């Protein structure tokens, strides 16, 4: 019925994901129309998410043949997106979403990162140097996404790109009292010939997590001094997303899981 919707109630916050892209965005010389920095990142990101069926945007149309939005999004509820203010951090922009009930961050991360990357590419040539995801207000951990992530490895099998080295940094609360070695061992069990998680390594200051002022988080997250090295089958949005999702899933898989945390993956030479 046009204009009608049924809601099962808000049911409490289901977690906020704040995703930042670092690197460089340069407008293609022959691209007409939209100019990054003035165009609306929010609308293009929302459009991509709606086209892929991952989310929906609320509203109503004056056209009688246009029904209202779906009652509930599949993965996330859109909150906001903005270009970076240009304060010299090499941050391109950020997007903030709220997870749909029952959706784990590790489940949402691959489409979320892909959606963000696809969006940025609409504005020009993108060179991503790293991504950071800050999660807040998450409920207790739900079902692990490990099976789907392992299944997703087949996506990378025909990859032809050169392998890439990266460093995963996180906040000191991510491990929830577990030892770093135990966490690294857990990640290594997800390793194979495509992705190779290494041991704990020191995190240089420039690769540490930094909590953005825009992120809606009420607890203080301190950068961990140690991170995890990872070798990716290629430097792509989907490969970065897979690695980050595995880290998040491993952190959330046992026990209640951290409810506020930040994870950052940066490409290293």
């Amino acid at each position, binding site marked *: *019925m*046009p*204009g*009608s*919707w*049924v*809601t*099962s*109630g*808000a*049911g*409490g*916050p289901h977690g*906020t994901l704040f995703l930042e892209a670092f690197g460089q965005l340069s407008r293609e010389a022959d691209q007409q129309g939209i100019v990054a920095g*003035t*165009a*609306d990142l*929010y*609308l293009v990101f929302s459009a991509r998410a709606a086209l892929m069926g991952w989310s929906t*945007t*609320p*509203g*109503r*149309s*004056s*056209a*009688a043949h*246009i029904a*209202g939005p779906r*009652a509930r999004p599949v993965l996330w*509820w*859109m*909150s*906001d997106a903005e270009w970076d203010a240009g304060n010299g951090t090499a941050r391109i922009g950020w997007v*903030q979403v*709220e997870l749909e009930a029952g959706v784990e961050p590790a489940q949402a991360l691959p489409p979320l990162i892909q959606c963000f990357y696809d969006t940025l590419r609409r504005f020009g040539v993108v060179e991503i140097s790293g991504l950071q995801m800050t999660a807040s*207000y998450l409920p207790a951990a739900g079902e692990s996404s490990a099976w789907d992530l392992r299944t997703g490895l087949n996506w990378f099998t025909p990859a032809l790109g050169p392998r890439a080295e990266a460093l995963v940094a996180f906040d000191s609360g991510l491990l929830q009292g577990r030892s770093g070695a135990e966490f690294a061992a857990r990640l290594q069990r997800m390793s194979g010939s495509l992705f190779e998680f290494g041991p704990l390594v020191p995190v240089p200051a420039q690769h540490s997590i930094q909590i953005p*002022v*825009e*992120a*809606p988080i*009420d607890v203080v997250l301190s950068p961990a001094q140690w991170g995890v090295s990872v070798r990716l089958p290629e430097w792509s949005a989907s490969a970065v997303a897979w690695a980050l999702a595995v880290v998040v899933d491993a952190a959330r898989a046992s026990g209640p899981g951290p409810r506020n945390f930040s994870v950052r993956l940066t490409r290293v030479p």
Partner: protein
Amino acid sequence: MRDSSIRCLGMVLMLVAVPLVPASAATTDEDGRSVDGRRLSPFLVQRFAYAVADGVMAPPERCTIAELEQMLNQPNGTSENCPGSFAPYPGAEADTSEEQTSVEPQARAGSCEYETRGDYPHRSGGDVSAHGWWETTTYSSCPTHADVEVWIQGVWCDRWGCRWLTAAHGEKRIRPRNIYNERTTARRACVSHDVVGFRTVVDVDLVGVIDPPDRYVGPPRDVPCRPGPPLSG
């Protein structure tokens, strides 16, 4: 019936009827009507009980929405005179189709087809924030601008039930967002991350064109933000 019998009946109704009302049905609008579509209203039941028991105790006056909003929008507003607090959305299965279709018919302004949009209330740094805007794919048939108002309403509960109260409001004359990236913002500072139910309401008024009522009422979202004093300016 003797006065004492009437008073007893009133007291019995107060003690029995009100606790039987499920918490999920306790959300009412300013008219005492359930905003989540249910007919049973604890407000009306209790009003009746008070009326019957008149003389036994003096019922306190329920503050109107205007009084509450005035109180909440004063810099140092307290709820001493209107006891109550912001609360999470009750969360029961609710069909709000009546609210969407009968109150707000499909909007159309001549050949200008447009969409009224608003995002979900969300935390933005230390604030709760929401945006409203309009979009069109037939801009040549539309006025250049529209006055777009956006409200963030929060669930306010007191002893009579729960109501939607405006926590923030914004108004701006803007061009369509899908062409000019313009939007109206409403935001209010949070004083804690207590969970409160919010919704976004957007009204698009095309400038110089008679358009039907087209206020969009978004779905409720629980946000970890208890509204604090209003933003200055």
